[in-house]
């Protein structure tokens, strides 16, 4: 990079298309590819993915070692009598609990969040602004503070929300409600009002216009937020750790955490983590395909756009 500073830069003529500028010009070309940065990016990618790949690999290890490969086996998933995910009641309970929490949270959270987004966007008042602030606050507050406050709420005040699955779901819904609310609201803004007005002019009722016109237009955003809520619930640790009661209501993340220092052996935990990963990846894949399919009519949505759409941006 420094080499170009002192030299007189050959200013490329304006008529020349950008594509050609990228490589063809002789030395001192200001548009050349930044190899240093590209190498750095690849190093980052390796650093971020390799440890996980090794952990997945060793969940298929025949022995209990995390560092010596002793042959392929699925015994940590289904084979071993006591410590495999299939046969250990604690382990497979955790898988079920994770799925139960993720499904319940998504089913409750997404409709509430979508309705909230539409309501807040149209009902322009002090109150709706205040509610919007509150919603964004719930997005940025450190999870531990919310979890502790919710723990005190359900143990000291609203004791009818029992610790365990009810408290976990109630808390996960409030922690995740900002996903649908923020994503759907952004989409509402970009859609504008004209479609709905056209429907109203053609005689549709307000509710009919929402149901027949607005909701279909919002579908990609609703779907993307559902996938995000599901994945973030599968991944959640702090809230479920604070609000679970017995071992039966501990999902996978809590079980992994409490067994890392002693307890269940390494490969079985790796197997559990791999199952968790597969659940998330299936959700992501469904999300990616579904998102592309739902937004198929719009402009030319490339893969990159669908990816960022599904990541909530």
């Amino acid at each position, binding site marked *: 990079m420094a080499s170009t500073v002192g030299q007189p*830069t050959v200013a490329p003529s304006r008529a020349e298309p950008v594509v050609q500028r990228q490589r063809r010009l002789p030395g001192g070309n200001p548009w050349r590819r930044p190899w240093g940065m590209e190498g750095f990016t690849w190093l980052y990618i390796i650093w971020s993915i390799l440890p*996980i790949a090794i952990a997945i690999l060793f969940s298929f290890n025949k022995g209990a070692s995390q560092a010596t490969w002793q042959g392929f086996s699925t015994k940590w998933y289904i084979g071993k009598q006591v410590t495999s995910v299939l046969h250990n009641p604690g382990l497979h309970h955790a898988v079920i609990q994770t799925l139960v929490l993720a499904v319940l949270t998504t089913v409750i959270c997404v409709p509430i969040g979508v309705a909230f987004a539409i*309501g807040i966007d149209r009902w*322009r008042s002090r109150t709706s602004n205040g509610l919007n602030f509150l919603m964004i606050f719930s997005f940025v507050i450190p999870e531990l503070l919310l979890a502790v*406050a919710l723990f005190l709420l359900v143990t000291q005040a609203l004791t009818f929300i029992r610790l365990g699955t009810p408290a976990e779901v109630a808390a996960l*819904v409030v922690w995740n*409600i900002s996903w649908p609310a923020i994503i759907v609201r952004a989409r509402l803004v970009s859609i504008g009002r004209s479609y709905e007005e056209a429907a109203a002019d053609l005689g549709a009722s307000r509710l009919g216009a929402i149901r027949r016109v607005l909701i279909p237009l919002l579908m990609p955003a609703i779907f993307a937020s559902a996938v995000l809520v599901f994945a973030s619930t599968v991944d959640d640790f702090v809230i479920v750790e604070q609000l679970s009661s017995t071992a039966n209501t501990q999902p996978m993340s809590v079980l992994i955490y409490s067994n890392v220092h002693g307890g269940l052996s390494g490969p079985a935990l*790796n197997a559990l983590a791999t199952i968790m990963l597969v659940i998330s990846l299936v959700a*992501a894949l469904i999300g990616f395909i579904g998102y592309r399919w739902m937004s198929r009519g719009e402009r030319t949505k490339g893969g990159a756009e669908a990816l960022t759409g599904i990541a909530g941006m």
Partner: protein
Amino acid sequence: MGQRQDTHDRRNRGLWIGLALPGAIWLLVLFVAPFYVMLSVAGGGINEFFQTVVPVWNPLHWSSWNLSAVWHDIVGHGAFIGPPAFRTFLYTAIATAITLAIAYPVAYFVSRYGGRRKTLFLVLLIAPFWVSYMMRMLAWIDLLQQGGFFNSALSFFGLPGNTNWLGGKSVTVILGLVYGYIPYVILVLYAFLDRIDQSMLEAARDLGLSRWRTFWHVTIPLSKPAIIAGTFITALPMLGDYFTNQLLSGAPGTTMIGNVIEGQLGAPGETGQGAVLALMLLVVLLIPMTYYVVSTARTSREYA
């Protein structure tokens, strides 16, 4: 946005309120009310016999007993909260700086030079986002344990390969925090940087600025909101983190404020002090959080 639309909105106000209501109730009951309970526990007393919490609901009767107990633990004789509190801010500052130093070039490269391979890069950058935090920490525990791959690699290069990386090392915890939170930051930075108008950069180059000066005088100012957002979304959760250090060290020398809050909350007779400490952290974070919320709300209004 005309007059007609305003009357439309006004006529349908009941509908909009009705739609917003379930979410509003959920937020009030499960987001606002919990913090009032926290205040009541913090200002309440304890049952001397059972050592259980006795919340006081009337603000006029709140006592400062828990507050002074915590204050004594922070600054008084034998204070044990000071070091973890200091460590929390130190770890967060270092880890946030490292995270941004890694995330910015990566996001910048992919957004500007990704070219035809942009989708591939995005898949690879988003992949860790879908791997649970626990699994990513578990993967490093496997690598860093004694006799693990990391030590083997060190001894392969002739370095001492018997370090106990999981035995309470600050550097392990800080790198664990970086590894844990960096995927989110990269995505946020990418989303911002991708929106920067390339023609601005080309104009700067055409006007004779060097690569570095273009970066310094055009790109950096344009990506200021991205850097601010990135700092917030890394630093805020790190300040409330209590599990990364437990997983990667577990030693008292690396505890953070989250561990103290969690410990006190579960200890008989100390729940009220845990509540006070959580509220203190909340008060400290209220200013940066409000700043972030206001600027986010303003951006979304500008788009509207």
